[in-house]
């Protein structure tokens, strides 16, 4: 409907959302000691529009951290690039050489916040010295005073004390260190910011500060999009527009945060939401459901649906062939059953309980 309107009156239509990141058929693998390939990211497709925050969730070992590393286009043993493309602003970064990737993309177009920000900074380097080194790579014309002015300005805007610049990492608290790392990562206004569990090691207050900081970066357009990886789903609901759930190296469902949390379609998403611990009244009597079993060994992925082993609704036909993504009733998920069928089953299950 809106599209038709836009066709007729292009000048009145809202600017179509520009895609900042497009990933197609991305496969990356780890090489084991026995020289086997273990595909931790096994054919991932997704796109991210400007101004959006995308959450990636899943159990430990589902490939979400590997995916976040893989998006950087930067591979080192034991992680290797298999196939597929990663386009940022229309440029396929996998086609650039290592040196051009480093000079033009890393830190400038796409930036990364590591899982353990505690140790992400060189312990014997003052924060400002590290920022100077970063600028030497990407803005070599800036003088040291200019770099300092720029850093101070950015820190102040993000409500971080400029005094932090003259501190050594060991002098900062965990939450402060994490926010400093975020400020450094985004100082060049990258199009995409990939945050791998940026809050997992923090206390609740620091978590909030980090979340607020990430939202602020988006609002102020210091970053054009955000990919937030975590195993904490409630957190994603507050931070992101869309959520993607990964299982055994594949995306099993993608939807808006609202859909994914309150109305999941894929059985795995459903189970994942069921295992969230929500503090509420009568919670002690509430039986917390865990997903039985463990994710498959990626060295030896089963044929058919990878979740079939642990799925209550699995049928014979689930265990053969390759299960494609299914787009139905505005939902995108990897299952052979329709939305209505699945919902019926969920309703039955509820009744039985």
């Amino acid at each position, binding site marked *: 409907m809106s599209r038709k309107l836009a066709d007729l009156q292009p000048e009145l239509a809202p600017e179509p959302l520009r895609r900042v990141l497009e990933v197609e058929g991305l496969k990356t693998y780890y090489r084991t000691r026995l020289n086997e390939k273990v595909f931790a990211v096994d054919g991932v497709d997704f796109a991210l529009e400007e101004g959006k925050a995308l959450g990636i969730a899943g159990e430990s070992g589902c490939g979400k951290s590997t995916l976040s590393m893989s998006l950087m286009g930067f591979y080192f043993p034991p992680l290797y690039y298999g196939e597929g493309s990663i386009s940022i602003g229309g440029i396929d970064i996998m086609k650039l050489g290592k040196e051009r990737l480093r*000079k033009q993309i890393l830190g400038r177009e796409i930036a990364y916040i*590591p899982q*353990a920000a505690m*140790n992400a900074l060189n312990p*014997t380097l003052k924060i400002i010295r590290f920022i100077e080194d970063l600028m030497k*790579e990407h803005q070599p014309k800036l003088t040291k005073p200019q770099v300092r002015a720029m850093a101070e300005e950015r820190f102040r805007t993000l409500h971080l004390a400029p005094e932090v610049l003259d501190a050594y990492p*060991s*002098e900062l608290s965990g939450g402060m260190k994490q926010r400093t790392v975020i400020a450094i990562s985004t100082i060049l206004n990258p199009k995409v910011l990939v945050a791998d569990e940026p809050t997992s090691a923090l206390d609740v207050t620091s978590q909030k500060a980090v979340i607020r900081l990430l939202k602020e970066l988006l609002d102020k357009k210091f970053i054009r999009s955000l990919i937030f990886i975590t195993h904490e789903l409630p957190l994603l609901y507050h931070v992101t527009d869309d959520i993607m759930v990964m299982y055994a190296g594949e995306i099993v469902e993608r939807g808006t945060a609202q859909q994914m949390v309150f109305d999941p379609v894929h059985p795995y998403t459903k189970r994942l939401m069921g295992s969230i611990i929500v503090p509420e009244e009568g919670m002690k009597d509430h039986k917390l459901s865990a997903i039985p079993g463990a994710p498959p060994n990626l060295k030896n992925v089963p044929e058919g649906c990878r979740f079939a082993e642990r799925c209550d609704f699995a049928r014979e036909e689930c265990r053969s062939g390759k299960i494609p993504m299914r787009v139905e009733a505005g939902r995108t998920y990897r299952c052979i059953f329709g939305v209505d069928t699945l919902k019926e089953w969920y309703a039955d299950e509820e009744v039985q309980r």
Partner: protein
Amino acid sequence: MNAYARYFLKKSGWYLVTLLIALILNFLLPRLIEGNPVSTIASQVSQGMTDSDSIKKVYDNFMKEFGVDKPLLAQFGIYLKKLVTGDLGTSFGLYPRKVSDILMAAVPWTVALQLPAILVGWIIGNVLGAVAAYRKGVFDKVLFPAALFVNSIPFFTLAIIMLYLLAITLKWFPMSGGYDYQMVPHFSLDFILSVLRHHTLPFLSIVLVTIGGQAIGMREMSIYELNSDYVLYSKLLGIRDSRVARYVFKNAMLPQITGLALSIGTMVGGSLICEIVFSYPGIGTWLFTAIRQLDYPLISGCTLLIALTVLLANFTIEIVYGIVDPRIKASQMEEN
């Protein structure tokens, strides 16, 4: 006065206490060795004498001269009093040479042998270790076991093997001494060449051992640092490899600085075996001779020198560390 200065003032106090304890031990330990030094000397001096009275007289004279007849505490008092004026006493074994003269003559030999050897070994060892960690592959696979092998040979064995192979069998280098024995130390090309020829073998043996130990340490530290999160983070921000490598090796060097300072500090004592095997005219050989002759003043003099250099080296390390590594500076200031 800031916390940092206070820390060092307090530390200096502790170092003084340590030095005092070392002084007591320096004085006491030689005197606890079984035997009477004077009787040895007296018997040497009175050789040929038949009159027991004269022999007794010689003995008593020496007892008095050396002050060994007084009670230990009084002896210690005299020792301290003399020490303050810089007098380390007279050697028993090389009577009447002053201990300070003997040490003064020996120190240059020891330093000239050890200092270059330790520095060269340390630099080569660290470079090899860093390259092995960075390059990995064949280089690492060959270097690491070789370094481990050299490092696990006891030094005296290595020195003796080198002596046997290079001096006795191949006759490339002289076997012992600091210079040709028929020469008198003087400033001439011949003498310098002779010193260098004698210097080479003990020098190489120390270098070899130092390389082994340092290379292993540096390799381990570099591998640890290379795998740290800040390396990955820096690279993902597009910082070039050479700059990241500089971060890594600076951090990996920190414990190695301690290693260097410690080996320079223990240089005087550490050269003992090397100097004995190659009969090199340094402190080690003198200490060895002094112990055999129960030469109390000379033993105390040698051990005092060793204690002083070790303490000084440790103190220097603490200062240098505080400057190089902010984490250590912070913990030093917290200690106050």
